[in-house]
């Protein structure tokens, strides 16, 4: 019987970077004979049938990967809700089977350490759910992937692709993520000032394209 991995995508954007990173991981494991499933947390908490599938896949999985963007320094709200519900499900099972959980957390800031709290939250979820913690990849500069397929974006972020390749090997071998994988994900590809400059330029261009450049700093809730 093939081993199963469930990827839970935490970002509400269906074709964003979180989905792209999860896809890279699950495709590589599928090529190694794993049965793979990917579900979006936001769809699951909004739809009963989708939730039933998430619950079933979660309980059956040998490995669970949470792939998410950072939202306000931690996990997105609907992923948090899904984890609250899953923790309650896990609390009611008679005996926990051997399962492993790993996390991939990325953010729009260039510093990977801004993801550390979110990784810790995933780790504490695993602890509460009785699942073995395999480790978390924290990746800064998510804008460099911007939802692109990692086969293409890998050229821009070779360190991330390397980290994911190491994670695939670890999952397949049933081991924790090796320190090399964690370190590779944390590599900073650009200086902070340059990344911030490029991110601002990109945002200003987009604002101009959409005709809101002059209103970009609007203050609709200014105190009276």
């Amino acid at each position, binding site marked *: 019987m093939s081993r199963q991995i469930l990827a839970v995508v935490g970002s509400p954007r269906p074709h964003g970077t979180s989905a792209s990173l999860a896809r890279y991981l699950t495709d590589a494991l599928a090529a190694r004979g794993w049965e793979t499933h990917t579900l979006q947390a936001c769809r699951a908490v909004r739809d009963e049938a989708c939730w039933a599938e998430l619950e079933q896949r979660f309980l059956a999985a040998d490995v669970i990967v949470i792939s998410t963007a950072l939202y306000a320094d*931690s996990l*997105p709200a609907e992923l948090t809700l899904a984890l609250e519900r899953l923790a309650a499900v896990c609390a009611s099972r008679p005996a926990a089977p051997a399962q492993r959980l790993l996390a991939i957390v990325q953010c729009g800031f260039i510093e990977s350490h801004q993801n550390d709290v979110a990784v810790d939250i995933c780790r504490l979820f695993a602890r509460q759910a009785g699942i073995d913690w395999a480790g978390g990849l924290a990746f800064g500069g998510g804008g460099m992937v911007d939802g692109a397929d990692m086969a293409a974006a890998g050229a821009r972020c070779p360190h991330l692709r390397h980290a994911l390749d190491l994670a695939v090997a670890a999952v397949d071998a049933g081991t924790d993520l090796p320190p090399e994988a964690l370190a590779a994900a944390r590599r900073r590809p650009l200086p*902070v*000032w340059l990344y911030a400059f490029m991110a601002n330029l990109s945002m200003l261009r987009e604002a101009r394209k959409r005709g809101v450049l002059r209103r*970009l700093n609007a203050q609709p809730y200014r105190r009276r």
Partner: protein
Amino acid sequence: MNSVILHGGREPHAGLDAACDHLADAFTGLGATVRTLRLAEMRIRPCAGCFGCWLRTPGECVHDDDGREVARALVEADVRVFLTPVTFGGYSSLIKTAEERGIPTISPLFRTIAGEMHHRRRYDYPSVLLAVGWQEAADAESAAVFASLVRRNGLNLHALAAESLVLTAALPAAEQRERIAALAARAKGALS
């Protein structure tokens, strides 16, 4: 001084409700106005990650629901309080939903502070962030993560101060009240 308490309990919860009362008493005693938002009773759609609040209707979420009221209340408050069960070391999903609807209140543009990237401010009002977490049983590990989260939020929200307090069911009510009063007093001190 204006304060807003975001109550992130999902159902009646003796511990959180008592802490909410203690917070309201403490701020009132300091001469502050207190506004309590019970998030479970509000209709707040989650952030869709669409960037609409930055690039379609700058400063305001595209969802027209109670989330806009949350954002306005956060801007108007000198002291923002998140009251929440400590959830895997973080906030409850209700607090997270409300907090993310505050994203329109920051600028989409970045700046670096002490060599670290942060969003720029949209509003220049000084504010203090407090988070009061509840644990049924003391758990130092999740309390430490909770404290880290509040620190990170404080940095990214450009708060004058950001402080967390974790209460447990084992802590006597008088002690809880005292710690909350001291927390509120420190918030006032940071603003003055």
